[in-house]
């Protein structure tokens, strides 16, 4: 028996592709992904219409999607993140039905619980065997973890594994197991490795970002959480990753070993694992080649599913055991609500990803951002989009001061005792505006082009069209 199909068309036909279905995709190949485009092109060629796209994230490489929307092949999009190229088109109203935004944990739960039904999961697999066992560890498009594809594989009615690297049965280890897979298709290439992962993620050299991350490390130092068994997650960008650089000497000084590093994993966290700063890494997404090599070779660096990462309905998840998460923001308001979906004009350029999940789960959720970007103050009266509710955000760290959520009087006191520059968040807003002037904010008033669903399934906010 073999599940190998000669073409994606054959596999899609075998799975009964027809109008109105929901197709799912993962984003482990990030801006190098070729599979989503191939699959939609195939559906378009077959004359299929009215598809709903259930994608864990969308990147600018997926721009052909815009034409499939215009031609009616795709009429619905549900995703956790959308980069600015796609976001611009959505913000201008190209899609009639509002996009449904979720968080990584919220999406996993929606799929696990059956709130979201997937007809066909098309899973890009850097390596697979003829029965559909698949992983991201080998092959020209190796991407490491396949954590975001796991709920799709488990619950979709049909699963197609698309690979450019067939290996003899049985592939080990299998991130996607054959028990869920209907079809395997070999294509010349599933994506461009250059867009998938970089060599190593470099820590920023921007001195302002470094000033922010130095202050952020001091906040962690005095939070009471930096002790034996410390667990930590940070993004790969700007000031977030740089926090790690300042944590390292503190952990060495205190002679503590962290229990785990979580999330999107970079080479920098891999170094810390190898040097004994952390006992383990839990990896739902690899950000660079060093992370890919490590997850392949080091048994203490393990892949976890999106469900185990952050599902709100699971009996427990990794984010529930997380001490500190360092997150970014385009805006934060005086009630600590954070916007990561739109830019300051209200145009879509991001999404939750794991932002609201980790903020809800971690003992200390910290936003790091410059006090103003270009001329725009980071603290506003009301965010243009509420991506992460303020009651789950503990502290804002900027280069000129720190604001602690009034819900965290304990933290406020600890940071003041440490003589860190703590201000009411209103004061940070005014401090910025004394330098920048008061911005005129115009909230977009067009029709609703996207809805932001909180991780528990409730509607958190809506995003309106920009002219």
């Amino acid at each position, binding site marked *: 028996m073999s599940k190998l199909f000669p073409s994606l068309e054959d596999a899609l036909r075998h799975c009964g592709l027809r109008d109105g279905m929901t197709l799912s995709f993962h984003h482990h190949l990030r801006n190098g992904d070729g599979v989503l485009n191939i699959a939609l092109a195939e559906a378009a060629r077959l004359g299929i219409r009215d598809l709903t796209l259930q994608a864990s994230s969308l990147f600018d490489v997926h721009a052909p999607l815009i034409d499939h929307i215009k031609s009616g092949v795709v009429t619905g999009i549900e995703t956790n993140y959308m980069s600015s190229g796609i976001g611009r088109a959505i913000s201008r109203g190209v899609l009639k039905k509002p996009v449904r935004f979720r968080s990584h944990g919220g999406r996993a739960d929606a799929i696990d619980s059956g709130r979201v039904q997937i007809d066909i999961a098309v899973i890009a697999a850097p390596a697979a065997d003829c029965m559909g066992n698949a992983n991201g560890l080998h092959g020209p498009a190796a991407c490491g973890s396949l954590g975001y594809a796991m709920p799709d594989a488990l619950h979709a009615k049909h699963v197609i594994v698309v690979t450019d690297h067939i290996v003899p049965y049985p592939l080990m280890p299998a991130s996607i197991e054959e028990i869920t897979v209907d079809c395997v298709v070999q294509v010349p290439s599933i994506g461009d490795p250059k867009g998938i992962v970089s060599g190593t993620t470099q820590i920023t050299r921007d001195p302002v970002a470094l000033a922010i991350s130095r202050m952020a490390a001091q906040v962690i130092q005095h939070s009471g959480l930096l002790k034996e068994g410390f667990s930590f997650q940070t993004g790969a960008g700007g000031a977030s990753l740089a926090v790690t650089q300042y944590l390292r000497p503190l952990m060495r000084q205190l002679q503590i070993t962290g229990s785990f590093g979580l999330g999107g994993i970079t080479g920098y966290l891999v170094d810390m694992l190898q040097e004994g700063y952390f006992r383990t890494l839990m990896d739902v997404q690899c950000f660079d080649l060093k992370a890919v090599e490590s997850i392949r070779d080091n048994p203490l660096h393990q892949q976890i599913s999106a469900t185990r990462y952050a599902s709100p309905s699971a009996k427990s998840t990794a984010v529930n055991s997380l001490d500190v998460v360092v997150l970014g923001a385009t805006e934060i308001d005086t009630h600590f609500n954070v916007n990561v979906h739109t830019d300051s004009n209200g145009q879509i350029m991001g999404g939750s990803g794991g932002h609201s999940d980790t903020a809800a789960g971690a003992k200390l959720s910290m936003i790091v951002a410059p006090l103003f970007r270009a001329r725009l103050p980071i603290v506003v009266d009301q965010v243009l989009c509420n991506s992460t509710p303020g009651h789950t955000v503990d502290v804002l760290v900027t280069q000129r001061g720190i604001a602690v959520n009034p819900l965290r009087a304990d933290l406020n006191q600890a940071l003041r005792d440490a003589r860190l520059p703590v201000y009411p968040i209103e004061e940070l807003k005014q401090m910025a505006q004394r330098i920048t002037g008061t*911005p005129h904010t115009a909230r977009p008033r067009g029709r609703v082009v996207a809805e932001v669903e909180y991780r528990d399934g409730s509607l958190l906010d809506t995003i309106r069209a920009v002219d």
Partner: protein
Amino acid sequence: MKIVREAIAGTLESNDVFVRVSPADKGLNIQVQSIVLGQFGAQIEQAARQTAQMLGVQNAVLSLDDRGAIDCTIRARVETALLRGAEVQA
């Protein structure tokens, strides 16, 4: 003060503004491009206009390409460009 030649000041770096002035016959013509036009367009124009008026420049074309400069930077760059384009070097 009279603008007699084309002149430039500033840069296209982040937080700066690139200003170009040229002679004109009647009035101040101020053109603003900015990455924060929606939020600060009016303030940028006002800063440029006040600077020109303070220097007694009545006729000029001023074009600003703004990369998020704060008010004092806009004033400094506009003043520099105007003085460079004026009859008397300062």
